[in-house]
């Protein structure tokens, strides 16, 4: 196969949205995404635009309205849940239910797609868990209960769990929503490192637009009218970023390569 066709994620004419009894509510249509290995992708768009819908569709939590999704050249529809769990892992925003899980146990759960029916950890499993702690710099936390962690530490541990799952793709839904600027930057730096050094394909939905502009390899922009996927440079070059927020208050400053408050403010 031609190397150019090695897309880790590919969609053809994908439409996403919700169907209720009476009508079909299309959130976005005709998405043709082609994504290679080892890229940090930031998914940007204003609240309610459908970022979560897109991520939920890519992760098979909800069905596509039409079109196809390919993960590692395999149609998502034909992947069973364990096969999918071996190529795609998640970090979610939702609060974890209360439990007595230790950090080690939590990260070890990432090995579930590989362990036997009762969940015994093999030597290989232990190695992957160890690596996950190493890559996220969280080894000192292993004996803590997860509810004792700060939000920033918990986020790293959840990323470690996803790493232990050893998947090509990691999808994160607003991982920095509860974090201060220090931990936000730390988290993004970690994600960048994982993409660059360990060739993970990482898709992050985020509202940290300015940080995304600096760190992302590829931006996915969702606007009411269309979906754009390209490198940051190309998007800036073609004046695409102004379409992200249709507002008088905020505009894209091409020289600073940042969003700034408009003069009219």
């Amino acid at each position, binding site marked *: 196969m031609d190397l150019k066709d090695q897309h880790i994620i590919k969609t053809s004419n994908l439409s996403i949205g919700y169907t209720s009894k009476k009508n079909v509510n299309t959130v976005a249509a005709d998405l043709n995404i082609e994504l290679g290995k080892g890229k940090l992708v930031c998914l940007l768009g204003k609240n309610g635009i459908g970022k979560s819908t897109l991520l939920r569709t890519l992760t098979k939590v909800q069905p596509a309205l039409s079109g196809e999704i390919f993960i590692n050249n395999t149609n998502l529809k034909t992947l069973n849940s364990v096969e999918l769990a071996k190529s795609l892992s998640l970090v979610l925003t939702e609060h974890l*239910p*209360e439990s007595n899980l230790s950090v*080690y146990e939590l990260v*070890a*759960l*990432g090995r579930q797609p590989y362990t036997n029916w009762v969940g015994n950890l093999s030597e290989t499993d232990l190695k992957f868990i160890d690596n996950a702690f190493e890559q996220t710099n969280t080894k000192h936390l292993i004996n803590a209960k997860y509810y004792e962690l700060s939000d920033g530490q918990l986020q790293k541990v959840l990323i470690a769990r996803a790493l232990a799952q050893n998947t090509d793709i990691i999808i994160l839904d607003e991982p920095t929503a509860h974090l201060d600027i220090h931990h936000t930057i730390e988290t993004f730096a970690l994600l960048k490192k994982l993409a660059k050094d360990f060739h993970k394909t990482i898709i992050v939905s985020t509202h940290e637009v300015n940080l995304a502009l600096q760190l992302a390899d590829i931006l996915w922009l969702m606007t009411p009218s269309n979906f754009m996927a390209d490198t940051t440079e190309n998007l800036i070059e073609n004046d695409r970023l102004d379409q992200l927020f249709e507002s008088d208050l905020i505009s894209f400053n091409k020289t600073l390569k940042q969003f700034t408050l408009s003069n009219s403010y």
Partner: protein
Amino acid sequence: MVNPTKSYRNTFLILLGALLLIFIVNISLGSVYIPLKQLFLAFVDGEVEKESWKSIALNYRLPKAITAIIVGSGLSISGLLMQTLFRNPLAGPYVLGISSGASLGVAILILGASFFGATAAGFAFSSWGHAIAASLGAFLVLSAVMLAAIKVRNTMSILIIGLMFGSLTASVISVLAYFSSANQLQQYLFWSFGSLGNLSWNEILVLLIIFVIGMTFVIFIIKPLNSLLLGENYAKSMGVNVKRTRNFTLIATSLLTGVITAFSGPIAFIGLAVPHLTKLLFSTSNHKILVPAVAISGAIIMLICDSIAQLPTSEYTLPINAITSLFGAPIIIWLLVRKRKITY
């Protein structure tokens, strides 16, 4: 790096020792004093001073102790499963109305027997009849609560829905009771007090068979239950078949709660309190540890409750339900006050 998953071998050995000890204490207690040595001789088929001692030991005390072990383990495991599945520390077979559902099954069988004619009446008094009716009743209520739980994510609402189902079944039972004869009513009332005694070896066999079937389902959901500790979405993303896990939990809980309630009446608080005590003792949420630990702890606590119910040196036996509530309710209050939040 060493795997820091703790080893619990010593705690398990201590628990098993405690179980053996309380088992011996339990069978040595009763309205008739039997020396320990004579009790032992009775079980190993040796020569016993009095024939009546042998009969009491083999046909009353031993079956009762075995019943206590099965009842305690089964209800506690049911509670553990429900607390994990509903992500709710206050879930349990009694709280969620599952025991009420089992009661309804038995009530329809006992109180409604006359409506169904003679064949049904015969069936109503057989041990299998009770077991099946109670399991079906438990299954019905648990399915209803679970359907509601899929729609309603709020854990507090699920508890309230469970309580409502409990009240609903209670009112159906009242209506049935209103139309039934004094004789049937008395029979139902005695059953509902809860009792571990009076089971024949045949009935214990029925109890044991269904207990083993229920526990087999539990063993197969140990691993998915662990991933459910992170919530359903994470569990799904790790390849867990959440629907199957939910169904297995449903079947296991209905069988365990159903058959136990059929033979020993609706027993309160064991299913709710024991998992918490065990989690406190073991400080883990790993079901591979918790399932056996909860089963053993449940057996120990049920044997203790039964020993207290004997009222040592007295002729009377208190209803077991009174003891479990006396024991369980303060524990829950203490846990809530002391820890402020219960983890599960």
